[in-house]
């Protein structure tokens, strides 16, 4: 019983990270109908930026974990937000009228470039880095069940980021502009919305969330490495798709579903735990056959 609780806690933690990545995909898709495949690697850059800031703050002699954490998050956020806006401005907007697949490929290549650049140019970048434990590590132990304070804080932080994003999209003028652009670019322009600016802001926002996920990942696993974004990006994308693109709730649902599938694969098939990714992706294929536009489909009607 205690173990079941443990699996649940692990699954929630994993699901929160996946959901944060998936939300980014769904945001970009919403405003521009594009898939930015470098998202996972932007997350990795965010995690490295956060790591660098934490180290730099520690190096100047500030050992207060709260300050370190703040510096880490702020720096990671600003780096990836700038990176996200830059990607939108110089890679995605110029290709808006090119075949759709081009954006997919160009961002995939950017992902490779980011990954290789960190490996080559970050000091000793090809090896994993120990991300400092900046959160309290006291643990609540009940038999086989262990809940650490840092895990709880991270889940709470992740959920509040998602709730915050939800409020931003639904309750603010900026959110209104984003939704307007998402629905119809031309009408939005006519209504006096600065289209390019909204796109840039959305990309900055989505990438900033990736940075949060990256730093969270670092804090949770206490380790960052240059390859961490690859699989996370892939999973986040799959999660966004199975949930239904362009839908915030879909992304969250997809994220938790994928985490659950992986947990189930590892736990319920003890003789063949190596098959858990095979299992998770096979379920994704089956889900797509069953619900070809995701679990929560877009509400847009067919344009003829």
């Amino acid at each position, binding site marked *: 019983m205690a173990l079941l609780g443990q699996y649940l806690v*692990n699954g929630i933690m994993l699901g929160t990270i996946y959901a944060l990545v998936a939300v980014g995909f769904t945001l970009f898709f919403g405003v521009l109908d594009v898939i930015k495949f470098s998202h996972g690697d932007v997350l990795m850059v965010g995690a490295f930026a956060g790591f660098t800031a934490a180290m730099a703050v520690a190096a100047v002699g500030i050992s207060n974990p709260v300050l370190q954490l703040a510096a880490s998050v702020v720096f990671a956020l600003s780096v990836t937000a700038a990176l996200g806006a830059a990607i939108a401005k110089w890679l995605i907007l110029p290709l808006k009228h090119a075949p759709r697949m081009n954006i997919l490929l160009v961002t995939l290549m950017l992902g490779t470039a980011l990954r290789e650049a960190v490996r080559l140019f970050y000091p000793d970048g090809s*090896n994993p880095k120990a991300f400092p434990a900046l959160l309290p590590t006291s643990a609540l132990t009940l038999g086989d069940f*262990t809940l650490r304070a840092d895990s709880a804080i991270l889940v709470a932080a992740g959920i509040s980021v998602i709730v915050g994003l939800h409020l931003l999209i639904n309750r603010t003028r900026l959110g209104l502009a984003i939704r307007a652009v998402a629905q119809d670019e031309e009408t939005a322009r006519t209504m006096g919305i600065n289209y390019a600016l909204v796109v840039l802001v959305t990309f900055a926002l989505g990438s900033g969330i990736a940075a949060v996920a990256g730093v969270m990942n670092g804090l949770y696993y206490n380790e960052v490495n240059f*390859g961490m974004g690859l699989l996370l990006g892939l999973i986040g994308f799959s999660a966004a798709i199975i949930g239904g693109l362009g839908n915030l709730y879909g992304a969250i649902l997809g994220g938790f579903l994928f985490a659950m599938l992986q*947990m189930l694969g590892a736990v319920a098939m*003890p003789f063949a*735990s*190596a098959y858990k990714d095979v299992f998770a992706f096979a379920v994704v294929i089956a889900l797509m056959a069953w619900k070809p536009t995701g679990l929560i489909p877009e509400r847009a009607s067919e344009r003829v």
Partner: protein
Amino acid sequence: MHTILRFGVGAMLSAALAAAPMAGASAKDKVKVAFIGPLSGGNASIGVGGRNSADLAVKIRNADPKAKYTYELFSQDDECKPNVGVQVATKAASDPKTVAAIAHYCSAVAMSTVDVYHKFGMPMIVWGAVLPDITYGNDYKEIHRVNGTMVNQNEVAADFMTKQGFKTWVILHDTTDYGKGHNAYFSKFLKEKGGNVLATFGVTADQQDFTAELTKAKELKPDVIYFGGLTPLGVRIRQQMDKLGIKAQFEGVSGIVSAAFIEGLDPKLAEGILAFREGAPVEKLPGGKYFMEQYDKAKYDQGPDAYGAFSFAATTLVLDAIEAVGPNRKKVTEYLSKVQNKDSITGPISFDDHGQNTVAAITKYVIQDGKWVLWEDSEYAAGKRKLAGK
């Protein structure tokens, strides 16, 4: 006809481009040796470390006034992919100026290229791949290996661990040839020595989260968590063991014996981790100290990593062979097959009839105060500190 055509079109351009750097070349003949390893992607840190070490061996030889030839290292990236491996191996082997190769860290790549070296009669020494079949799966006299196989390593590991009094294991291994091979041999030897494997989990090489597997492991309460795989995964698994409050002893394989493994971990978590590696410890040999000094002096932007010393030893051996019998593939192969008890920085090298180095001693390591320390020299062996769960 084709040669004429080729010279006709290529000559002008090649001449113009190649002429410039030729000025000031020495009177010695130039001889090329190839280095092949993973220089990009996930295994790059080991590959680049090996490449640097091979490069160092060549530089040292070139600086030696007694050397008969000037050597050039022709280094190639195999990306840890068999298809690319066959490509670059063909490239090196079909170039008559390249005499021998020091090649491969990834076993699947080595398995795919041994046929190529054999076909072209090029002597090759493996510097890192550990799968037994690379040397024992064929009768090719061109193939040699300076590092031990995972068989030796796991035999010693199983023996040592059971003698320490550990009884139960949970095994995590990555699903590459490396991890799967380690799992197979360790499980086999452990059974012979009376140890008990409670569960085995295969994980993919780019997996981030191991909490599901580890929670399951926690339920089984093993004495030891055995991990068969490389540094990045090892770091993650050790971190997550702590997250879940697992107190078992962590036992690794040669793939985690690197400074990066310790740097990736909190010092508290690294303490007391055990691992095993082929070859006498570099830092224990007079030649090993020399190697580290020279390596530091050459100021590469990255350390030699886990297998740099083997790459250095293999390269030095090839250069010795060429010095002794000349840049002739057949003669070098013959020379290599007769190598017995030859000194190297990784200890004496003797090749058996399959080209496998037989005296690849296995060294036991434990992490003590943030350093890989020989078990025999550690405070653990002296009884001052205790391994986890004891």
